[in-house]
């Protein structure tokens, strides 16, 4: 279905661009993230930038069904912990010309504050730079603590419950940091 839609939009570039522009405006109005291009260095900078108690990176694509299916779980988790300093970094592996479709999808998430990008640059450097255990299959998620240290890697879809579990583990007595300490003493 998604592929059919993509083909239909690609066949009507005028329509696609017109709709994309309209969606971009809607995106800005909703203060949802606009997807900029980013290579590994940019994504790593987002992970390490100070001010977050934890960082969740999710790599997805508009045409990837399991990615779209897991996204509500991720957004629910983000909304729950956003005020505690959780940073959400969404990296789309879509081709850059699908930016309007990516923006439209992001706008519907109502995940204000999330940082969204479209991946550019060499695939292998990007994959291994995030986690050498990652095969490159979508989706993939990575949880970091407030120091930018990777704490958990999910190859494949995640659930809200798994995210909560790993975050609690990070904050718990076994963790080396207490990322949610400010929010949940």
């Amino acid at each position, binding site marked *: 279905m998604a592929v059919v839609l993509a083909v239909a939009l690609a066949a009507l570039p005028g329509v696609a661009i017109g709709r994309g522009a309209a969606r971009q405006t809607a995106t800005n109005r909703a203060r949802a993230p606009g997807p900029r291009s980013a290579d590994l260095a940019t994504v790593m900078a987002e992970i390490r930038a100070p001010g977050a108690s934890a960082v969740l990176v999710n*790599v997805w694509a508009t045409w990837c069904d399991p990615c779209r299916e897991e996204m509500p779980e991720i957004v629910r988790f983000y909304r729950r912990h956003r005020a505690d300093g959780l940073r959400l970094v969404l990296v789309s592996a879509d081709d850059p010309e699908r930016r309007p479709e990516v923006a439209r999808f992001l706008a519907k998430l109502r995940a204000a504050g999330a940082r969204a990008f479209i991946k550019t640059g*060499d695939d292998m450097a990007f994959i291994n*730079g995030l986690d050498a255990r990652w095969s490159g*299959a979508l989706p993939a998620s990575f949880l970091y603590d407030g120091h930018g240290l990777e704490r*958990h*890697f*999910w*190859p494949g879809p995640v659930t809200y419950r798994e995210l909560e579990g790993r975050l609690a583990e990070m904050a718990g007595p076994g963790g080396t940091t207490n990322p949610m300490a400010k929010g949940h003493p």
Partner: protein
Amino acid sequence: MSFAAFTLVTTLAVGSASSPASASAATGPLSAGAPAPLASTKMKSALDGKLVSIADVAGKAGTLVIFTCNHCPFARGWERRIADLGNAYAKKGVGVILINANDPAKYPEDGFAEMQARVKSLGLQVPYVVDETSNVARAFGASVTPEAFLFDKSGKLAYHGTIDDNHKDPAQVGKRYLKDALEAVVVGKPPAVAETKGIGCGIKFR
């Protein structure tokens, strides 16, 4: 996939790695030098409807197994190059088999009729088969489409990874990983690059 490699990456990424990150259900692919698992499993081919196994196609110069599918934008981007490489190296003594392990219940486009259509439209001359339990893909530790496993003439895994460094535009390709590996294997040499990765669709296991 080695622990050492992972630790190195973590160290580079954060400066100090006190402990490696945990992972959920990460299983690795075949290691370099490993033989093809489940090589005698018969799979139905969209080329001619016959049952064929990896062992059936194994070539004197080597054997190329590629997990791919019909629907994935990455597999589609590379499909012409995969077909051309498969057809060309089959003539050079490499046994070639393309395997679709995706569950068509999840992606109807990955069904057998669509595979047959793809065989025709691409002029494919090598088997494109259905892994109807997805167990062959599991045994290989394959996780993404497309994902290539190239075995040398003695049946040892010589190259594992992606096709090249640009799924979208053949004119922009800089590194022809699989073609270079095939060239090496055909002349009995180990490929200069034995392991690569590319972003792709996760295999939809049954």
